[in-house]
């Protein structure tokens, strides 16, 4: 199962990279994807999560080919 992970704004800056391409053999939640991609770095509590550009909860399951994005609260407008 191949997953694209994207990071934006302060999350991206803190991690020092904007995306990961990951391969898993079992179904994971979005939160587990973060933990596998960033071992030892807990996801900041106010982070937002999107799968394929729709907002989801952290316990949503990620499917093969999905794009998972993590980012801080939005501040546009």
């Amino acid at each position, binding site marked *: 199962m191949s997953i694209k992970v*994207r990071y*934006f*704004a*302060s999350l991206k*800056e803190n991690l020092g990279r904007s995306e990961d391409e990951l391969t898993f053999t079992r179904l994971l939640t979005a939160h587990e994807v973060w933990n596998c991609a960033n071992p030892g770095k807990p996801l900041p509590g*106010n982070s*937002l999560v*999107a799968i394929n*550009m*729709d*907002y989801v909860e952290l316990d949503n399951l990620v499917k093969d080919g999905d794009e998972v*994005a993590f*980012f*801080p*609260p*939005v*501040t*546009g*407008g």
Partner: protein
Amino acid sequence: MTIKISTQAFDPFHEVQSYQSTRLDNLGAIGATSIFIGTMRDFNENAAVKGMTLEYYPGMTEKQLEEIVIQAQCQWQLIDSLIIHRVGNILPHESIVLVAVWSSHRGDAFDANRYLMEALKSKAPFWKKELLITDQERWVASNTNGYKQKS
């Protein structure tokens, strides 16, 4: 419904006027136009600001804005709407966001415009990083709720 992400400075009045004269064909039905323009201030949270960078999530930003407009169209009777949001490097006095709503009646125009702005600020993936006059950079932590009464 038109949504634009602009990497260049834009003149909100020119954009609204040009949209109205070229894109709207039922002008006689328009009784109310509500326009909101968000502009970059030279201060924020007690600090002087000399510049800003606006990051976004290409694809998701447009998708979320479209969903917001569709929600507004379900709740109010709208003739048309235009949203322009700036991204990239921005200077004080420049426009950040334009929301224009055309309707037959003022209640619809006012309420939809307000809804679009609040929804945009809470749902559309944009992130502001401020450059202070001290050359320090800082991410804006979160948007306030514009409906909330100030004390």
